[in-house]
């Protein structure tokens, strides 16, 4: 294990070994369970630039999300996509490389929608910058987005620039009751098309109930909540209950210790089939039905990525198009980073 202290040392570390993989805080262990010299990113931490008036910050990849969230909160701003595992110590770089977003991604988009720029080390050990530092930029190819979900297989992220938003003055969580998956899905459909502009819309694990969050000026929320509760059966949660509910989801506290945790991107229309094929397992459906987090002692037939536990990194692997290999060779000619499919 190498532990570089700055970007220069990071580039050295990449060059020093024929096969390397960067790791952050190790909160998604399955993603780095592979033969390679590990580069520990935890010393490369700190916010380099934060200008609230620009809605942007730049931080080293090893910076814990918790530190970033605290700095943003002090200026009434936030990353709207609720990055997961923030309490467990997840880093900014690890979140980008894993491509993970939490319930809040429903309203304004996920980690891919807020990343603006990267500084990274390519397979030849060069330090390169792609994207930009302003909220709007269309110059050059959008490599920052490609790094989202790239699992360190195409380059080591050193520094990231993100867009942030003003934090809504207030938020409120409702729990809507549902007896079965059919009615949960119907609620997802009508609420996501509705006028309320909800921030988060999830089906809770081990239940069919819906958790939804609205946000905005404080005085507007009771009115919106009353209207929602006139359409759907449910209740308001207290602030403490709401905080615990979202935190438990974000930290995957509902996942049994012996189960594997998998991310399955889905479309709303597939959810019924997903539930039927995993009757004994716990599922948390998030982002209005666009992603399912599955906890299972086995594995799955659905295309998924395993974050932890005993399941293949990619389940249901399909033939990847030839372009993947060409991109990999372009970015990492010496194959210094592991391939996507080990």
């Amino acid at each position, binding site marked *: 294990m190498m532990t570089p202290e700055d970007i220069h040392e990071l580039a050295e570390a990449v060059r020093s070994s024929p096969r390397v993989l960067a790791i952050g805080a190790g909160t998604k262990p399955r993603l780095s369970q592979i033969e390679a010299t590990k580069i520990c990113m935890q010393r490369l931490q700190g916010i380099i630039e934060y200008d609230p*008036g620009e809605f942007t910050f730049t931080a080293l990849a090893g910076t814990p999300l918790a530190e970033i969230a605290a700095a943003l909160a002090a200026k009434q701003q936030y990353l709207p996509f609720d990055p997961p595992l923030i309490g467990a110590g997840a880093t900014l770089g690890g979140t980008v490389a894993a491509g993970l977003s939490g319930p809040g991604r429903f309203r304004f988009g996920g980690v891919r929608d807020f990343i603006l720029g990267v500084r990274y080390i390519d397979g030849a050990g060069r330090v390169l*910058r792609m994207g930009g530092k302003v*909220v709007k930029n269309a*110059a050059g190819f959008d490599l920052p987005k490609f790094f989202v979900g790239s699992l360190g297989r195409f380059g080591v992220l050193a520094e990231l620039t993100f867009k942030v938003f003003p934090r809504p*003055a207030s938020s409120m969580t409702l729990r809507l009751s549902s007896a079965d998956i059919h009615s949960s899905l119907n609620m997802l459909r009508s609420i996501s098309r*509705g006028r309320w502009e909800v921030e988060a819309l999830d089906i809770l694990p081990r239940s069919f109930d819906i958790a939804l969050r609205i946000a905005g000026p404080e005085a507007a929320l009771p009115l919106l909540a009353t209207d929602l509760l006139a359409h759907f059966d449910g209740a308001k949660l207290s602030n403490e209950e709401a905080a615990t509910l979202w935190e438990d989801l974000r930290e995957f506290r509902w996942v049994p210790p012996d189960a594997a945790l998998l991310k399955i991107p889905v479309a709303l229309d597939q959810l019924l089939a997903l539930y039927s094929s995993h009757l004994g397992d716990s599922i948390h459906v998030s982002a209005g039905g666009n992603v399912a987090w599955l906890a299972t002692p086995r594995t799955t037939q659905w295309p998924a990525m395993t974050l932890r536990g005993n399941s293949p990194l990619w389940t249901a692997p399909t033939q990847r198009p030839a*372009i993947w290999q060409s991109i990999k060779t372009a970015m990492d000619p010496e194959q210094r980073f592991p391939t996507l499919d080990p």
Partner: protein
Amino acid sequence: MPAALQRLAQILPADRLLTSAAELAAYESDGLTAFRTRPLAIAVPETQEEVIALVRLCHELQLHFVARGSGTSLSGGSLPVVGGIVITLNRLNRILKLDPDQRLAIVEPGVINSQVTTAATPHDLHYAPDPSSQSICTIGGNVAFNSGGAHCLKYGMTSNHVLGIKAVLATGEVVQFGGESRESIGPDACGLFTGNEGLFGIALEITLQLLPRAESFHTVLAGYQTLEQAGDAVSAVIAAGLLPGAMEIMDALALNAAKAAVHAEYPPGCEAVLIVELEGPRESVAIEKQSLEAILTASRPVEMRPARDAKERLAIWKGRKSAFSAVGRLSPDFIVQDGVVPRRRLGEALRRIDSMSKEAGIRVANVFHAGDGNLHPLILFNGREEGALERAEDLAGRILKMCVEMGGSITGEHGIGVEKREFLADMFNQYEIDAMLRLRAAFDPHGIANPGKMFPGKEAPSLSHHGLHPLEKAGIISRE
């Protein structure tokens, strides 16, 4: 008949393979009218299979091709390549699926941007990216350029609304990146493909996310004595924690032009006008509009005019949306730039543009997306005057360099195309440009897809003049 044409004729019937001088003339240029080139032929496919066959043939013959939507690119992105073919996608214009429950649409690349919203409107949904050319530009062109519009601060660019892309790459390989889910696993290739400026291949089918239409709007027009005051008001709105759907500024020259063109009415004695629009559920807007009023009052405008109804709101936007072409009418020719500066430096940037303009003796009008620092200076000149174009281009170049110096970008939404390729090196060093070239070669080893664009060097197309897009002259479209 050249061998390439014979092979093309095996894919397309004669009436969809245009080769006569008169037919080619219509495709010689795009929205950057200064550049003109004549291609070998125009291919007019009607099906995805025909597009795939054309690209595979180009790959086999190493024949250059340029994909083309409506040809409204302002940076020469769809300018033909001499000796190559243009593949126009306007006939692939079907909306293949519109699913209101999943809030998505699957469209072919030739579908016009505003048609997506038109199709979604009965379901109270809309497609958010709204370039001012939306009534004419295609989704394929929007994807290639990652186009923006007036609502980017809150809703992002095209890329933030593309969930999936089926494409034929320049190697002939057909791929599907992303799909119907808003989430994905593995590297985000869909994000990488968006904004490739036609250098990777041709998008055949695009899955777009739709958003619920905002229930209510509150639009305010505020007039200021100086541009800087208007810029400060923008900062104050941001500092207060509001997230308006749009914040736009017009300067005096633009105001006068809009007055003359569409009889827009502005408070007298103003050097600048700011438009701010809030949107959302009625309960939230009702409260936020009070905060906005307090902030704007404190910014000491000459006058503040909140829209009292939908008609007044439309009138405010009409003035704004017509400003571009209105300014264009003040002058025989103009260049529009698209640089971005950090928002806090807007005032400084505008001051510097003003002094550069005075120094060069060239008029510059500013109409821009203030919320995200995306400037759109319009540089006015008369192409018939000896050296005028060169002086205007020189000024445009200095403005771009200033944007980079300030920590911004050479393009917020119009792309690099042919026009700004010499400035790519101001933003990226040689290693970074090489990395992009390697990536480009991965998608297109023979360099046949839209060569001569984005990257510095290469053959320079011939210049003629800058001015209104032919469709603008005909009054069909207008721009911001």
